[in-house]
């Protein structure tokens, strides 16, 4: 559905995206993951042909440079910065973008706006909406013409934890309905919640292309756990975990242990088998 080949974008001497190639199959959710400045937003803008680039991008079999208009009819876009025309109401904004998307006159948008809980805010000016409501409006606009592809640039960057969870849940529903996703994020929890594949970008280069559950292993990440234990069991716990080769040390009311990728379950099982009760734990 999406094919990116040797995508490169330079800003003067800085190469923001460097020889990036990847494909996205229909119904797949692919995350562009990386720190700020890794080239995620630039790559997203290239997908929409919003900025000139080197290389080639085809979406639904169409070259984005030659058929940018036709390509954009296939895409719903949620930008990182939610900059709409502030003086328009929600209703006017939806109507304006609906007309640009060539929605037939009289199309009933109530189900979409109801689904996104925007009906009570329909007459509010965009400038008066909260960050969460603006994000929902952005998604409503992206879904106006029911496009098969959604491109989202840091879609939860402006949301608090609760709004973020709600938003991700909604995106997950859309994914189950068969939408193809490309989204950028620097939040690991967002990626594990939604993505089928993660493309890790560093300084514009593709470093890793992997399913999210493989990410920790591919990166060789260790997780540090703080286990809170009853005082008499701290020493036996230290001995048990040392015996199984886990780097562990005493830490206040319990122990601090470094766990290799995919080994957290094993750690808990070993302690359980040794009869040690874990009162609480935190993940670093």
């Amino acid at each position: 559905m999406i094919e990116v080949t040797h995508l490169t974008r330079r800003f003067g001497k800085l190469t923001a995206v460097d020889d990036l190639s990847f494909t996205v199959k229909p119904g797949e959710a692919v995350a562009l993951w990386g720190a700020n400045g890794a080239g995620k937003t630039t790559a997203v803008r290239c997908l929409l042909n919003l900025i000139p680039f080197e290389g080639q991008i085809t979406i639904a079999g169409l070259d984005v440079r030659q058929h940018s208009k036709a390509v954009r009819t296939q895409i719903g876009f949620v930008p990182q910065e939610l900059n709409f025309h502030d003086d328009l109401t929600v209703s006017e904004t939806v109507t304006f973008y609906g007309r640009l998307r060539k929605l037939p006159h009289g199309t009933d948008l109530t189900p979409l706006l109801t689904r996104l809980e925007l009906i009570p805010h329909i007459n509010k000016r965009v400038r008066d909406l909260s960050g969460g409501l603006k994000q929902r409006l952005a998604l409503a606009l992206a879904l106006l013409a029911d496009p098969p592809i959604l491109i989202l640039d840091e879609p939860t960057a402006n949301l608090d934890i609760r709004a973020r969870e709600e938003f991700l849940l909604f995106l997950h529903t859309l994914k189950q309905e068969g939408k193809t996703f490309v989204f950028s994020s620097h939040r690991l929890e967002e990626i594990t919640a939604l993505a089928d594949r993660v493309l890790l970008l560093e300084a514009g280069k593709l470093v890793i292309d992997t399913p999210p559950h493989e990410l920790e292993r591919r990166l060789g990440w260790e997780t540090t756990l703080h286990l809170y234990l009853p005082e008499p069991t701290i020493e036996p716990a230290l001995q048990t975990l040392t015996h199984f080769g886990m780097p562990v040390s005493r830490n206040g009311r319990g122990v601090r242990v470094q766990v290799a990728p995919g080994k957290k379950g094993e750690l808990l099982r070993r302690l359980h088998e040794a009869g040690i009760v874990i009162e609480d734990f935190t993940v670093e």
Partner: protein
Amino acid sequence: MRDLDFTTVFILAQKELRDARRNRWFLLYAAAFAGLSLGLAALALSGAGNYGLAGFGRTSASLINLILLIVPLMGLTLGALSLAGEREKGTLLYLLAQPVTQLELLLGKFVGLALALMAAIALGFGLTGLLIGVNGGGAQVTTYLGLLLLTCLLVLVSLSLGFLLSALVQRGATAVGLALFLWLGLTIFGDLGLMGTALILRLNVDQLFALALINPLQLFKITAVFNIRQNLELLGPAGIYAIRTYGSQLLPLLIGLLTLWIIAPFLVAIQLFKRKGVL
């Protein structure tokens, strides 16, 4: 060009028209133009002894200097804000992420702003014409209408130049600053600049005439004077040279050049906008 869809252009033009109605600068310009035109008409009528003899002709002559001052300022500043303002606010990026080409966006904005500005000018001319008509000064009405059409051409020229500046820069304030600088340059270069250049460089009359045509404000002035008097003796040797050289072809030539001043900057603006993208 193959993607050019006039429905999209129309939708964007409608949005621009709506925005103009809420733009305080636009409203201020429209009110200032109408108020000053009415003031000038009142003065011209009083000079004709309350009977309004040749009211439209006299008013047209007085209006030329007002138009030269206000109309380019309207077109240049509003044109300069059009793209740069949206780019700065970030709305440009979102607009172009829709099924809209850069050409459609520019055309839509240009048409919408042009209609708004021409409506403001027509309102000023209309109110002034009403005042003259009520006072019985119906003579030379075609001259007055001719000046209205020429003023519309001038506002399109300045709007096109404003769009060119807007395509060049990132920020609205920079674009407006450049627009004011250009307005000042074109206005000053109009008379003083031409006189100074002619004296220093000892220009021939044909060179002086050619130099005057380079400045769209001078071009408008020459055309407007020709519209009122059907000759250019008022402009001195350069005017006489123009009449003798081009004869009946002079008016089409002047209007053609004004039209070229609309098209050329707009075409350059499109190319710059395409090359620059949304950033």
